[in-house]
């Protein structure tokens, strides 16, 4: 080799990957080309380690006439009737949020919102799933305050209601918080947009913010390698969000779509312009010529590599017919959004990028966008560790038996960071803006009406229990899907589709790849069994500090529809005198439970049995009961079991209940068996009959009323005492 070696390793490329680039090009890449391959072939952009596993979602997908656009596009699109469609997706912004909590979380919301906008949809709501280290740990407060403020700051300023999510604490997330943001949008079928540069001679227009040195190499650097603080030089400049610019971009793009002025549109996210040029060209006519010097810059001194890999926020790329360019520029002018012609669509089959006349990039766009490496990473179940974990069941833990001990346990669990009220978080989020929110925090699922002139609505829930997945990634993933599915069913909605954000450790660790393979296999199976296809999602690897990975955390979002939002079912007891009825079967299943963790710091054994048929029947029953106006409230039984569900349902409206427990009080109160819910109704007979028809076991527990949760013959808990315990924890911890 006479020529000087190229710095491919610094760009995150492996030897064999560099060799492939040489083959593809038949020559040495230019520095600019090399950098583009570096970001485009990064784990984050190319899914090189996960591709082979994610295929199952499409291959084994249940047939669904509702699905209009499946996996592969920026987000899946689902038909909800009346000529309307819904698109939704959850995405991670974990690593940036650790470096700069506020901006990392804020730009995470901004990024997923642009994904939804790109489909031609008006974003109508967001949700967020957050994981932190132990609540009392030294660094947790900084991360919680910054991340929650960031999610709120961006979403509130964008005018999108936040309708739900989760907050979790576990030591494994200490050096590696999870920030998963979900956005959902609505579009008329005929407004669907695709990320394609079609039509030779069409014009490529860059919309929105100027390009700066933000997050250069961010995707490949931060999210595609184990992050160690020893190399601050590797840290890209933090991306700062400008929600106002994004709000303007949304209104501007929607007017462009409605006026039929664009033939293709792509958001700029990870890998910035590199990704947008390569993908739109590859999925269009195949050719594009970009004059890079036309890109408006924040810093004049930027060079092509920086411009192409910058991850500056609030930018979109539009493909426009020459005849429409003037109209597009005028519309952007009206909104005060920057719009600049930067290139044209060609039929050369090549992406050619010039810089003041000099060609700096000349490649087949597909080689960047689609021909990235695909790995079959080694998979190895860590038998010793996993078997030991399974053997270490919770059965040996001391269980409370007396009424007094049970009372203490309920109170302590309700006050634990694990199960306490999320109000401190959710009060920082606007849930009213847009005027369509029908249910939001603290109800099981968020429900929004999808338009002013329709009664139709959608329900969404987001769940991701990392402890069940740690005990068994396959079953754990299925249980997470089941919980989200149950949460929307409790609202009275019909589950339609799934989005997932798979948060795992390093794919180079065979044990982590085993978790990933198991989780994806389990999720694909369960989606098939429940008839809800995965329409899109996101993978986040390298969530680990040093050698220790986070608990495998598949966060699952389920989208459901309601024909009439007025029929939605809240989670809280409504009035005095409603009959409380338990649905589903309770077994002695406490391994991996909130009780084991909160009361004993114990994690071990086998997660609760997965009961997908029972989940289906339960959902069908809840839907029917809601449609018939038979239930006043419904709350799913999950973390903390029956005790926690009753506490939450009672506190929402300050209506207590007197219940009696059947069988062993401890198991009835704290087991986390799946496929269960409590409902309240004025007509117990009718509900029990309906449950019978659906083959769902149903038991009378008692009646609502009073200012206490009373468990007959065992204990009373006054609502004031409960509320103080439930509400006091997060404010005390995080100010």
């Amino acid at each position, binding site marked *: 080799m006479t020529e000087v070696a190229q710095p491919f390793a610094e760009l995150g490329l492996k030897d064999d990957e560099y060799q492939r680039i040489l083959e593809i090009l038949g020559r040495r890449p230019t520095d600019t080309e090399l950098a583009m391959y570096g970001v485009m072939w990064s784990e984050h952009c190319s899914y090189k380690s996960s591709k082979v596993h994610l295929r199952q979602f499409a291959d084994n997908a249940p047939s669904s006439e509702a699905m209009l656009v499946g996996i592969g596009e920026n987000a899946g699109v689902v038909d909800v009737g009346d000529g309307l469609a819904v698109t939704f997706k959850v995405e991670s912004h974990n690593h940036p949020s650790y470096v700069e909590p506020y901006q990392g979380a804020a730009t995470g919301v901004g990024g997923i919102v642009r994904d939804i906008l790109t489909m031609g949809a008006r974003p109508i709501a967001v949700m967020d799933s957050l994981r932190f280290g132990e609540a009392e740990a030294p660094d947790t407060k900084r991360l919680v305050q910054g991340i929650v403020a960031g999610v709120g700051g961006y979403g509130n300023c964008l005018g999108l209601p936040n309708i739900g999510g989760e907050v979790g604490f576990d030591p494994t997330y200490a050096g590696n918080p999870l920030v998963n943001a979900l956005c959902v949008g609505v579009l008329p079928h005929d407004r669907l947009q695709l990320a394609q540069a079609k039509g030779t001679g069409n014009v490529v227009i860059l919309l929105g913010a100027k390009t700066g040195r933000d997050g250069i190499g961010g995707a490949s650097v931060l999210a595609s390698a184990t992050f160690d603080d020893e190399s601050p030089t590797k840290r890209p*400049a933090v991306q700062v969000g400008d929600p106002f610019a994004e709000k303007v971009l949304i209104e501007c793009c929607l007017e462009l779509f409605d006026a039929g002025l664009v033939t293709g549109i792509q958001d700029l996210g990870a890998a910035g312009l590199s990704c947008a040029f390569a993908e739109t060209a590859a999925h269009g006519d195949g050719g594009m010529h970009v004059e890079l010097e036309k890109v408006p810059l924040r810093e004049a001194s930027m060079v092509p590599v920086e411009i192409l890999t910058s991850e500056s*926020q609030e930018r979109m790329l539009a493909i426009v017919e020459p005849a429409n360019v003037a109209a597009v520029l005028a519309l952007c002018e009206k909104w005060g959004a920057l719009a600049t012609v930067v290139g044209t669509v060609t039929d050369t089959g090549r992406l050619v990028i010039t810089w003041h006349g000099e060609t700096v990039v000349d490649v087949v766009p597909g080689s960047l966008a689609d021909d990235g490496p695909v790995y079959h990473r080694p998979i190895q179940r860590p038998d010793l560790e996993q078997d030991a974990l399974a053997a270490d069941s919770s059965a040996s833990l001391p269980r409370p038996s007396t009424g007094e001990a049970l009372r203490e346990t309920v109170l302590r669990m309700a006050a634990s960071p694990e199960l306490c009220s999320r109000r401190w978080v959710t009060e920082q989020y606007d849930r009213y803006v847009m005027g369509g929110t029908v249910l939001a925090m603290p109800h099981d699922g968020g429900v929004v009406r999808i338009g002013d002139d329709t009664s139709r609505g959608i329900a969404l829930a987001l769940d991701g229990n990392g402890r069940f997945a740690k005990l068994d990634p396959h079953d754990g993933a299925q249980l997470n899907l089941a919980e989200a599915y149950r949460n929307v069913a409790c609202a009275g909605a019909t589950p339609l589709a799934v989005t997932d954000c798979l948060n795992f450790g390093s794919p180079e660790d065979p044990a982590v790849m085993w978790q990933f393979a198991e989780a994806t296999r389990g999720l694909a199976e369960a989606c098939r069994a429940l008839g809800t296809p995965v329409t899109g999602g996101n993978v986040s690897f390298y969530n680990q500090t040093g050698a220790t990975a986070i608990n495998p955390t598949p966060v699952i979002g389920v989208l459901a529809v309601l024909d009439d939002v007025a029929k939605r079912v809240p989670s809280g007891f409504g009035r005095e005198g409603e009959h409380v009825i338990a649905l589903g079967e309770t077994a002695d299943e406490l391994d991996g439970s909130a009780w084991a963790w909160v009361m004993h710091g114990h994690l071990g054994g086998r997660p609760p049995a997965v009961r997908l048929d029972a989940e289906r029947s339960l959902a069908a029953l809840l839907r029917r009961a809601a449609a018939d106006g038979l239930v006043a409230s419904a709350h799913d039984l999950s973390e903390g079991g029956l005790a926690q569900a009753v506490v939450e349902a009672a506190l929402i409206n300050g209506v207590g209940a007197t219940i009696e427990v059947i069988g062993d009080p401890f198991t009835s109160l704290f087991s986390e068996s799946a496929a269960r819910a409590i409902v309240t109704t004025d007509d117990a007979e009718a509900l029990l009959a309906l449950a019978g028809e659906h083959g769902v076991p149903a038991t009378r527990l008692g009646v609502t009323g009073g200012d206490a949760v009373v468990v007959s013959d065992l204990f009373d808990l006054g609502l004031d005492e409960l509320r103080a315990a439930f509400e006091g924890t997060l404010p005390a911890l995080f100010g």
Partner: protein
Amino acid sequence: MPRVIVDVMPKPEILDPQGQAIARALPNLGFDNVTSVRQGKRFEIEVADGGDPLEVARLAAEAMLANPVIEDFTVHVAPD
């Protein structure tokens, strides 16, 4: 009692949406010759006598007043 000033500004390469919004608005008020605006924070700190106030301020800035990943800061004694 010695008063110290800590000036905190966004790093030059970091986006400053606040300053940009102002720069965009000023021309409409007739300030068309303002070419750029950057917005930062200013802290006035009073330090009890004893100990070097500037040193205290610098440490406080590093620890809490400035966010080193996106901001730079300078300290100086307040002109009175």
